[in-house]
């Protein structure tokens, strides 16, 4: 099915910042069920975040509402303007020109004007709706509990793979709550959803080839200029403000299963940053190109849930705002910030350097893609220094990693198919 990722970006009157911040804090206290903008009311919403950015160089603070949803952008905006209208009033009250929910038509067109689509994005659970992800978790847990019970009852004594699979199938058939699992599983992507991005990629490549006579001289001029600039661009010096870092760390709840008060901890985290693009024509024109290429790669080659070898990203997007002068990054990922950054450094340094080397104070790079994020310690410090604090963040399925979502889908998709012995053995290993 179609999924949409987008941000709604609006300026905030500096005088209204305290009110907006207090609204964010109230939402943050209970993202799913708060009285202002209860994200849990939207069945199509996977992840959402509300970030107040006061990055250097922004004329006014920017309020960013990140949305990752099932269905089209249009349908989502209609839902937001409908059920979410009062919540929008609470958070966007300080934005110049915000019409308010009393003017539904005005609100709709205001939203249309303030939606920004990402320059590049990644979706981990491609084509699976919130409802499907939750259902498949329920199925997995039920089968797991059944197997434990079945084993205690001696049902696994000397059982073959085929017999175990048959007993799981019988269990699912007999459980009224799991009747849905007997139906034919929906496709993750329709043929159209698979083919269109590839056609677009082919078209883009064809266009690039056609433009070669222009592109080649352009690159010949721009590349030496870039290499020259790379040597002189300012880089981050010193360590990020320890209080800022401590504040970020407090919001990152991943670790052992429970905290000191026995609360279950999340397995996911959120990260957001708003960073000024380096001044000058070169960076301003290079960054959209890099994002375009990255997005093509993401649409065509990373549809199996991994972005550049990183298996832990649910939704991530890069978005240019402020007429291309600031780059927003938002990401919803599994595990700790440390492990996420380590994945960046260990597995995806080249691509990330290509993007972020165009933004201010990035660690020293060479030839656009070398060094940069591969300078682990400095990259981590740079990332921390630019990360936004005080974000409210919502997740529709806090206990599920990307790996678990994919595994649950694979269990469900092959639950009633015909499998040979080898594939039966492999399927049982997922349980």
């Amino acid at each position, binding site marked *: 099915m179609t999924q949409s990722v987008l941000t709604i970006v609006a300026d905030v009157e500096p005088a209204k910042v305290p009110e907006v911040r207090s609204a964010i804090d109230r939402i943050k206290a209970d993202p799913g069920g708060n009285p202002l903008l209860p994200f849990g009311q939207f069945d199509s919403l996977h992840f959402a975040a509300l970030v107040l950015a006061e990055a250097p160089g922004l004329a006014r603070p920017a309020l960013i509402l990140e949305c990752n949803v099932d269905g089209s952008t249009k349908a989502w905006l209609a839902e937001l303007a409908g059920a979410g209208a009062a919540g929008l009033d609470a958070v966007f009250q300080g934005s110049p020109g915000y019409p308010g929910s009393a003017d539904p038509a005005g609100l709709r067109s205001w939203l249309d004007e303030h939606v920004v689509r990402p320059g590049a994005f990644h979706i981990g659970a491609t084509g699976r709706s919130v409802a499907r992800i939750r259902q498949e978790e329920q199925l997995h847990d039920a089968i797991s509990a059944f*197997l*434990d019970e079945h*084993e*205690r009852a*001696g049902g*696994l*004594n000397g*059982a*073959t*793979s085929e*017999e*175990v699979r048959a007993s799981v199938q019988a269990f699912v058939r007999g459980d009224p709550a799991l009747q849905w699992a007997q139906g034919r599983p929906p496709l993750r992507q329709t043929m159209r959803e698979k083919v269109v991005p590839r056609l677009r990629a082919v078209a883009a490549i064809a266009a690039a080839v056609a433009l070669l006579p222009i592109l080649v001289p352009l690159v010949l001029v721009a590349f030496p200029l870039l290499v020259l600039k790379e040597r002189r661009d300012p880089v981050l010096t010193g*360590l990020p403000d*320890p209080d800022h*870092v*401590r504040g970020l*760390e*407090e919001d990152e709840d*991943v*670790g*052992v*299963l*429970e*905290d*000191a008060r026995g609360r279950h*901890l999340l*397995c996911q985290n959120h990260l957001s940053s708003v960073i000024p693009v380096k001044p000058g024509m070169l960076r301003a024109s290079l960054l959209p190109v890099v994002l375009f290429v990255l997005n093509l790669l993401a649409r065509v080659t990373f549809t199996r849930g*991994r972005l550049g*070898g990183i*298996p832990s990203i649910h939704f991530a997007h890069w978005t240019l705002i402020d007429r291309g002068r600031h780059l927003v990054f938002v990401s919803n990922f*599994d*595990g*700790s910030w*440390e*492990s996420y950054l*380590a*994945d960046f*450094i*260990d*597995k*995806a*340094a*080249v691509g990330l350097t290509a993007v972020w080397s165009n933004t201010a104070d990035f660690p020293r790079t*060479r030839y656009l893609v*070398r*060094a940069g*994020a*591969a*300078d*682990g*310690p400095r990259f*981590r410090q740079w990332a921390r220094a630019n990360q936004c604090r005080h974000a409210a963040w919502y997740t529709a399925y806090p206990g599920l*990693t990307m*790996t*678990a979502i994919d*595994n649950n889908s694979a269990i469900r998709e092959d639950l009633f198919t015909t499998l040979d012995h080898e594939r039966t*053995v492999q399927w*049982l*290993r997922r*349980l």
Partner: protein
Amino acid sequence: MAAKAVTSSAAEALEFADMQGLVARAYGNLPFARYVLCRINEPAAARAWLRGLTDSVFTADRPSDDGPCLNLAFTWDGLRRLGLPDDALATFPKAMAEGMVTPRRSRILGDVGASDPSTWRWGGGGPDRGALHVLVMIFAGTEEALDQEHRTRRADYQAGGALEEVGEPIEGRLLADKGREHFGFADGLSQPLVKGWPKPDQKSVHPPAPPTPVRFAEVDPGEIILGYTDNFGKPAEGPTVAGAGGAAPLPKAPWAKGRRDLGRNGSFLVFRQLAQDVVGFQRALASASHACAMRGDGLSPEQVGAKMMGRWPSGAPIVLHPHRDPGTVEDNDFGYAEKDLHGLACPLGAHVRRANPRDSSEDSPEKTLKATLNHRILRRGRPYGRAIADPPAAGEEASAERGLLFICLNSDIERQFEFVQQTWLNNPFFAGLNGEVDPVVGPLTETGAFTIPDDPVRRRVTGVGGYVTVRGGAYFFLPGIKALRFLSSIPG
């Protein structure tokens, strides 16, 4: 992909004479060790003590002898107390400045419940808060030699009120079954192999490198020793100071203009006292074995233990020897992805597979291995307490405390030691698992689940965990010899 050093770091000569001995060896030939925690009472007297002592510190270039050997490490508080200026203290990593005990660190290290720092014997922020400054480490061949050396050193550092001991010294004892820890398993087998380290076949004054094959263990020297090239092709950046300092100047810090490298030839030392509940562990193996018997083809307690550890008591990897303990470690050269992707021999959540996942990944084993090598630690600890009789004599020994003095060296505490704790050992979602932590060293969680992959379908035992309890801990800086001289000559 991540840009490697352009120049080969293998050519980088390691300055062993400027390193403390602990960098090169665990003093495995000296069964008796004493770790004395001290507070600096009189900074001037402490510096004078250090000046007189620097030549007695056992260095990494010396051949192993019968000892006694002395090594020294300092907490961040200790360096401040010693008079290190603020501009230098600010160049220490955040983990050193904050220390091991903050709410967040407790969470990511798993120091909750029974291991909560408020229950620690030392370092937990109790009465010794801010008063742990110096760690004096003494290694000796006999208990008498250890006592004698301690008496001599104590007379020195108590002179002029330089140092005062905090709490009882911590006694490290190798077990009679050398190389094993109290649960009965061989320990310290898979260590990172530092590039430029003398190879076992070379005539060398150093003890032979551990028998880990190069492809699964080789790291650049900067991963362990500050100032050298690390895995990212950059110098491992340690603390720096403004002045060159006295007669033996510190080398320049190439990454910080006009500053000197205080970290060179030093390392960050993580020390944790981990009590082991041997009786509880053995009972758990028996009960898990009982639970496994419901399926007909059961697992013996010894097999369950090997599944949890990932190795047999001899240290032989269960990946290469799935059915029984061959009694010796012949080969440590294996990848999980290439031999046992699904964990049918060695469970995905087994202790050694979590602590060093090698190439364990369904995606790209090479990429995973390369990433794993960015998070290795060099272990230098040893057991404490008396060995338990096997099987345990009823009630008699059960209450006596025993465990492991976990000590490791690394150049980036957050990227290495803390990463291993948080992302591998204590990660409930490690390798696609769901809600279970390390079965051997992890805390007891709500279910205490441990999944043992098997055909036709996985076994899942419950109630596993909580056999290791933290009793103390702190982060230290283990300086090089020149750095010790520098510290001893800080103008008061």
